[in-house]
């Protein structure tokens, strides 16, 4: 899996399950979190099994982002446009949530395929709600105009108290992300990952991809944005989106990919850590093999009677630490059988 999907797997599973057992009344109340910023809650009551309440709690917006009544600009219109009459917006929303949708299963299209497609659309509600302002900007780009009431720099929330920035222009939109990571290792890995990203963009196969840039300091365009919003420990990434990236069906994918860019980088940082660990484990194994060969030669030369061999401990010890231990000559091996390495 390289790209993250826009549907929430669990929400889709809950919806499909409900659809299959519609006549069975089930009490359902569950909640979960996605990428740490959106909190979901699904409720079904015994009385009305065909009604499903879906509540969302959105990340707390930083002061510079545009929010109307706790929702991103244009979210309500976007919901109405995507879901039509099957979904109603409840006002006020459920306690401690920003938005509650009421889904009526009886109004679903009768065609089985259309039903599934609609449920999949509901499962990507995150894209619809949080991506609404981005979608407005990109739609204007597709028609090569700028929304009249937009500022020069538009801030959009993508993580709690964090935002990314858009610079809408008639022929292109620049998207700038300040990248922040908590862990120092992650920061280093993310920085090099992003630089790799630029390298990859330069190859011929990707010449149609959006232009992309990385810089350790805030780019020129972000002048006038408050200081706090610009503190980033992994630099700034910017993409330049042209109308060709948003025409037709590409729009949805672009909106999703841009609004979850941080989660995407985070996922790949963790993946590369896992990849490195795999490599380290393999290296440790080969080093142990080499040591084993050396040991048996030595033993034969000295005619030692007890045959012991270096053996990899079953499982434990982090490959990274093990690797360092081997480099620094620390003994990190265990003789077969005994637990404390004093067995020769």
């Amino acid at each position: 899996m390289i790209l993250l999907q826009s549907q929430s797997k669990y929400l889709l599973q809950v919806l499909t399950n409900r659809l299959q057992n519609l006549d069975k009344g089930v009490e359902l109340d569950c909640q979960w979190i996605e990428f740490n910023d959106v909190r979901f809650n699904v409720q079904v009551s015994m009385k009305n099994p065909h009604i499903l309440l879906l509540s969302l709690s959105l990340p707390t917006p930083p002061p510079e982002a545009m929010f109307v009544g706790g929702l991103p600009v244009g979210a309500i219109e976007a919901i109405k446009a995507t879901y039509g009459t099957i979904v109603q917006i409840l006002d006020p929303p459920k306690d401690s949530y920003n938005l509650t949708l009421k889904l009526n299963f009886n109004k679903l299209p009768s065609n089985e395929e259309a039903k599934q497609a609609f449920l999949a659309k509901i499962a990507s509600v995150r894209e619809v709600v949080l991506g609404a302002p981005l979608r407005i900007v990109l739609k204007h780009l597709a028609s090569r105009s700028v929304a009249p009431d937009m500022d020069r720099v538009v801030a959009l929330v993508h993580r709690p108290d964090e935002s990314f920035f858009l610079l809408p222009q008639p022929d292109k939109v620049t998207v700038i992300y300040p990248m922040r990571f908590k862990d120092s290792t992650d920061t280093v890995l993310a920085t090099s990952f992003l630089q790799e990203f630029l390298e990859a963009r330069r190859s011929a196969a990707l010449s149609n991809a959006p232009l992309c840039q990385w810089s350790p300091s805030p780019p020129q365009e972000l002048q006038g944005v408050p200081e706090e919003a610009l503190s980033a420990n992994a630099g700034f990434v910017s993409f330049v989106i042209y109308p060709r990236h948003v025409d037709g069906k590409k729009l949805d994918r672009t909106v999703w990919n841009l609004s979850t860019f941080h989660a995407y980088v985070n996922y790949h940082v963790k993946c590369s850590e896992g990849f490195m660990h795999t490599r380290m484990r393999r290296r440790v194994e080969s080093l142990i093999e080499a040591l084993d060969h050396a040991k048996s030669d030595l033993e034969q030369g000295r005619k030692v009677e007890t045959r012991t061999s270096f053996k990899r401990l079953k499982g434990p010890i982090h490959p990274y630490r093990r690797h360092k231990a081997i480099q620094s000559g620390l003994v990190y091996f265990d003789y077969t059988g005994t637990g404390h390495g004093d067995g020769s």
Partner: protein
Amino acid sequence: MGFAGNVEPCFILPTVVAVNDSFLNQPRTSNKSNWMTQYSAGVMADLDFFVGDEALSKSRSSSSYNLQYPIKNGQVENWDAMERFWQQCIFNYLRCDPEDHYFLLTESPLTPPESREYTGEIMFETFNVPGLYIAVQPVLALAAGYTTSKCELTGVVVDVGDGATHVVPVAEGYVIGSSIKSIPISGKDVTLFVQQLMRERGENVPPEDSFEVARQVKEMYCYTCSDIVKEFNKHDKDPSKYIKHWKGVKPKTGAPYSCDIGYERFLGPEVFFNPEIYNSDFTTPLPAVIDKCIQTAPIDTRRALYKNIVLSGGSTMFKDFHRRLQRDLKKIVDARVQASEARLGGEIKVSVSLVFVVHFCADGSLAPWRAHVLILPLVPTIGSQRSQPSHSEICSMVWRISACFNSRVLYVVASIDMHNPSRFKQACHTKAEYEEYGASICRTNPVFKGMY
């Protein structure tokens, strides 16, 4: 795996990873450009894998994927695959940022501490989790039965799964490892026995379907009887009341068929109490094994262990299974007490007031969901009032799970909402502790730090 505060887990996946090996077997060359393609192929292969049901379907549809089972007999064998499995669980299924969630993993009671240490290293170093707790499944099963009125974590957990049966004594939250007993009879054997009985009677079941039919018969119709002979008589006197009918459709021809279900209804579960009717190698009944297990435990814990026997796992869900177990166990203990009284010649009156409490609990690996009221009081005002799922619901859930897992141990990932203070968080090992003391902190996982 799932999130705390929900009644059911979000996903139930078999622990299997499908890896695309086709990249790895390419011949090595020193050519620079070739190295570049190989390098990127390696990177792609790193991401080209699937877990769970997707893995199973992928391996069936395409030959380039190989299945790897990271867990064998409850122990992690392949850490590469395990790390990938966790990675997909977190990012693709739960879709959460591991940096902001406390994690609860479960393990089998026989896991060595080194393996726990290694798990801790992966969780803290790769995923940067803020807190981790590695729970032993039987202890969780005990904890699931825990309520505020009865707070004890001492008891015997009888875990009868689809592929393995364990009797695990737990004292004050610690597993007494030397007294763990395992039995080679499990849920699958019940199914096989039912299948065998139906085949020998010549029921009209297509052979390719017979295991599946036997499994469903076991799940829907089997019960535990109090006495085999009486039960045979009952069935013979009033067959219309006891004999059930099964209707099915032949998978190949689509022709309908029907068959009767008779004695196997009570003979199936009977293999636990009279194993000799099924298997001539192993003849110790389950109650005797439990008694032996308690007798090998330290003497000061035995009374408490007799008092609290917890059944867990799908195959303990047969009707009246707990009554039968309780009665047989009482018989054994009473016989011993009488023998000791006779030996002492009535001089000292042995007062026995053992109360057996045998109760149900969901599968240990499911226990986080049963136990959420205890360990994870979500939002204290709302969460703690939530009703527990009814018994039948749990039954169906556990059946589903045992069927899915075939006794492979499920590693549960329950992530806990950061914003909710809970006692669970105190019991966790935190990232700061890990950085201060190293991975050895994961060796022991005290139950509910700060409660005693």
